[in-house]
């Protein structure tokens, strides 16, 4: 039972690590790493939803008569990974500009807009 749910346990652990990193760390790059860990957690969640034990790749041409894993969650995960790449690239380019303009990427310095 525990072994079967291991991916989901990993998802929860990764989520906690990701959120914790976002909230507790002060460095922008580390915060973005936290977001990436969170993304990985969600991707793992999606992929493990479609996993069937002993399943084969869902390609119907000349397929042996066995259980297949679900293709849809894999498609979702792939899309999500692509979006994650775009997100990461944009966030890191923001970090570069902040470093150039503010001279620091500590979150405590990002407080010119408030109240």
């Amino acid at each position, binding site marked *: 039972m525990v072994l079967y749910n291991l991916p989901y346990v990993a998802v929860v652990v990764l989520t906690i690590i990701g959120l914790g990193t976002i909230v507790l760390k002060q460095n922008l790059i580390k915060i973005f790493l936290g977001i990436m860990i*969170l993304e990985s957690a*969600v991707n793992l*969640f999606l992929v493990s939803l479609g996993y069937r034990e002993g399943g084969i790749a869902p390609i119907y041409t000349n397929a042996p008569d066995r259980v297949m894993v679900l293709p849809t969650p894999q498609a*979702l995960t792939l899309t999500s990974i692509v979006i994650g790449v*775009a*997100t990461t690239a944009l966030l890191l380019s923001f970090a570069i*500009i902040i470093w150039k*303009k503010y001279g620091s990427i500590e979150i405590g310095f990002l407080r010119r807009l408030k109240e």
Partner: protein
Amino acid sequence: MIPAFVVENSPALMIIVPFVAAFIAPFAGRAKPAVRALVVGGAMAITSAITLLLASDVYAHGTRLYVFGAQAATLAVPQDSGGIPVRIMFTVDPMSALMLVITAIAAFAVVIYSLTSERHHSGLGSYYTLFLLMVTGILGMVATGDIFNFFVFLEILSIASAGLIAFRIDGGVAVEAAIKYFVLSTIGALAILVAIGIYYGEYNALNMALIAQRMQFTLLDQLALVLIIAALAMKCGAVPMHFWTPDAYSMAPSSITALLVVASQASLYGLFRTVFSLYNITLNAACVGWLIIILGVLSMVVGVTMAIPQKNVKRLMAYHAVSQTGYMLLGVGVGLAVLDNQPLLEAFGYMAMEGGIFHIINHAMYKGLLFLTAGAIFFRIGTYDLNKMGGLGHSMKWTMVFFIIGALAIAGIPPFNGFASKLMIYESVFVFNPVLSVIAMVVSILTLASFVKVFHSIFMGPVLPEYKDVREVPGPMLAGMGILALVVIVFGLFPSLVVETLVAPAAHALADQGMYIAAVIGGGA
């Protein structure tokens, strides 16, 4: 007159046109900026026309389906699929159509405005790419009938918006605003993705209608509901998750801020769609309804009181945007709270929902107008600081007129459109709970007070020596503002017409889950 091909494929075309034009724009700009202006303006005009065409078709003939990759565009359930809609589809019901109308009008006005207002800035190729991607994202979000597709369009919208918020780096401050917006919206989008995973795991479906039909409201569904509600409420700027709103709205270029308002309305649409179409009466309507009402009341009060001491005109308007979102949450929340009680729903629930939904369209128009006037002032005097302004009414008469129209509309002064929707909210909410109605009225008064202050400090007073050479903004910018001002006035003078034709069908489509399911799967729930 209009080819049947366009009418048939309008849901796909309204996404494809801005999407393709987005990637043509930078190349067109290499030839000549005028060519780019033509491409962007033309693409947006075509998109708006197709969108309005689709919306009018939906209002005339009911919900439109568009199934991608199927033999026929309306073939939602193929013969061999066992009654399951397997393909990605757009489900455009009257509520979606209303959002399409809002987006079409606002985005068109904004594009006319920004072709002139941004003329002297650098990097315009990517500016219009991101702009058109934002439009694509909004249109896709409100039209789609597939929940994963909703997530994809939401992310397209977030990434494009973040890029545009940071567009004028402005010593890094705009980038700071964009980081705040984008980190929050990425976390929110991931929460939505988890909810989508939960739905898929439970119901083996991504189609909203199919999920709605199979909805059990188990503990996992409750988790998914909460993840989606909280994420989308954050994205539409409900208090106490509104902190990014003033930052992002004040640092984005003004024309983008006007579009960001529409974008946050699209998130609001997603929230209502989830609560009404996915869950409907399976959830505890009173409990979730009250959650939304409390969010709404908090947004109204905190938004307006935070707006009053603001010194930056766009920050002030952004807090008002938060406050006005509260009205929509209040109106529709009251409708949700009585959803499982048919007599009460008939008595005032529909009216409250209509008020809230009418306020969505009104808010997108007058708030867009106000942000555009703020941009026009910035265009001429180069500051958003209210303490540095004064006496501009002498030189910028048209801008002043448009500002007055927008300000009176947002404050709910008759005969402008804000009054009509607020009246509907006051009267129906009063029957539900008088206290809420009184709070809404007080907030409206404070809104008026706040805009009197803004009006006085920008336009009144003698001509200041530093601004004695200020001229009126160029014609196209006035035209962009004029379109929105015209809509504000027309909607204000003929509220009944708008409510009967646009808003009431949307409210009923939202409340009637069976109709939504039947349109896709057939036969009803």
